[in-house]
């Protein structure tokens, strides 16, 4: 049940990251063409491109958590036996979950402030910025999945 839910979340994240990256590519190319051939620009293209970058970052980071592929400085863990590495897996996921959860709460408070003080014309921008609390929420969720499901064979092999 839990594994199915995890797979579903990952599929959704993959879909969203694909859309975000392809949109980012199309938008940047469109901007070059519009500027050079039509002597104009796509309205808000730069702002949208930067927001799409945040989407790619957070969905990519969520997938990195799901595949246990975050950048680590695991000097000691590298030299430990597989048994000890396995024992450490759950406590590490727990700590990752706590930190991500605290960041999600901070991001939510930040977003609420932004929403409260945003001018009516900027509200769409703030709305799209919901990716900040959502992204950290997804990281928390993936750490929770890993905590409950334990180390997968895929992770052990890598």
């Amino acid at each position, binding site marked *: 049940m839990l594994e199915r839910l995890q797979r579903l979340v990952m599929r959704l994240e993959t879909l969203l990251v694909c859309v975000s990256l392809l949109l980012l590519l199309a938008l940047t190319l469109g901007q070059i063409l519009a500027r050079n051939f039509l002597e104009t620009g796509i309205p808000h293209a730069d702002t949208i*491109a930067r927001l799409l970058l945040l989407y*790619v970052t957070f969905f990519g980071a969520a*997938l990195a958590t799901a595949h246990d592929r975050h*950048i680590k400085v695991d000097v000691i863990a590298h030299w430990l036996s597989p048994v000890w590495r396995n024992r450490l897996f759950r406590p590490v996921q727990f700590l990752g979950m706590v*930190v991500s959860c605290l*960041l999600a709460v901070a991001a939510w*408070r930040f977003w609420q402030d932004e929403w409260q003080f945003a001018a009516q014309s900027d509200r769409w921008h703030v709305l799209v910025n919901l990716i*900040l609390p959502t992204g950290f929420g997804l990281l928390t969720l993936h750490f929770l999945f890993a905590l409950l499901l334990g180390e997968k064979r895929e992770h052990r092999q890598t």
Partner: protein
Amino acid sequence: MMAVAIPLLVLLATLGLPLFAVLAAGGLLAAHQAGLDPAVLIIELNRISSSPNLIAIPLFTFAGVVLAAGGSPQRLITFFNAFLGWLPGGLGSVALTVCAFFTAFSGASGVTILALGGMLYPMLRQVGYPERFCLGLLTSSGSLGILFAPSLAVLVYGIVAGVSIDQLFLAGIVPGFILLAMLIGYSFVAGLKAHLPHHPFELRAIWPAFRKSIWDLFLPFGILIGIFGGFVTVSEVSACTAAYVLFIECVVHRTISLHRQLTELIREASILVGSLLIILGVAMGLTNIMIDAQIPMQLLAWVETHVDSHLQFLLLLNLFLLVVGAMMDIFSAMIVMVPLILPLAQRYGVDPVHLGIIMLANLELGYSTPPVGLNLFIACQRFKKPVLSLFRATLPFLAIMLVWLVIVTYLPQTSLWWR
């Protein structure tokens, strides 16, 4: 509190807690201690979207992933083998050139060893190169091209340090070619010593190989012409590169099927990008808190009392970065260290562009140095050899790279020749 928290966080990092979580935990604790709202970390993280050059990172990464999956390494090996393989030690030179070329696109994320190592290792062994030489060459070549455009490492330094990426790309050309020439020279000598057979020069073999790889070979020139010709910005050239790479792999060579492989390729690229940019985001928050607490100023004051000259500073910088490079991967090392080192370097008259090349050169060595040299671990998986024997195999290459590091550090003209 921080006196206990910092060693604890370092311990947790060494036990496998992702680096972004370690930095974020440090930031949250520092904010708590300073009586600040943790939302300050998010404000800084949100700023990553305001850097226009940052868009280049996902797009160049995507291009690198598509090239790796599309068979570009095989085409490049065929071409450079026809072009250089007739020299004594020619195949070693081919391996070095292809790895440098490919690493510039794949971002030294280990893809080079995985994608090229499996093909080049049996080729080198078949010609008669000693096993140790082959392992050393392929392990240390995994980070060989990080100074060449459009290397992700250069982009990250430029963004974190606020230095022009165009200037960094220009500054990396000569040091990058010096290292390549030095390693090719070593391969040439090794080939002569071992009396290795090499195929005769055949113009007829070059033409078909050139025709097959011409689209790949055009890429670095296209990027440099695009940027330095003033036609496009760094982020725009990354979009052009991604579109061009998709075109050559899907339409010209037809090695990638869009509807079957595109999702997987984007997912792979996004994992690399997400794991890198999330660190950048949280590190910016932590840096801001450190600046508020005047930590860089305190560090500067401490260094000023102990270091008297420019030369002494460079020497200490080299030693420090070599240690950092052996402990951290290149991207996280730059994100964490640049805000601390940059003010010091400027105080001692080191140009920020030159500092970037020095940092990248030091950290490039760290890639093949225990305990966490990424190349060692990837090569360990790829070639099924123990890390220590791989480290021994890389020693001659590391010695050459150390000489190169001295040249690059103490002769700033090699990086700043264009000024």
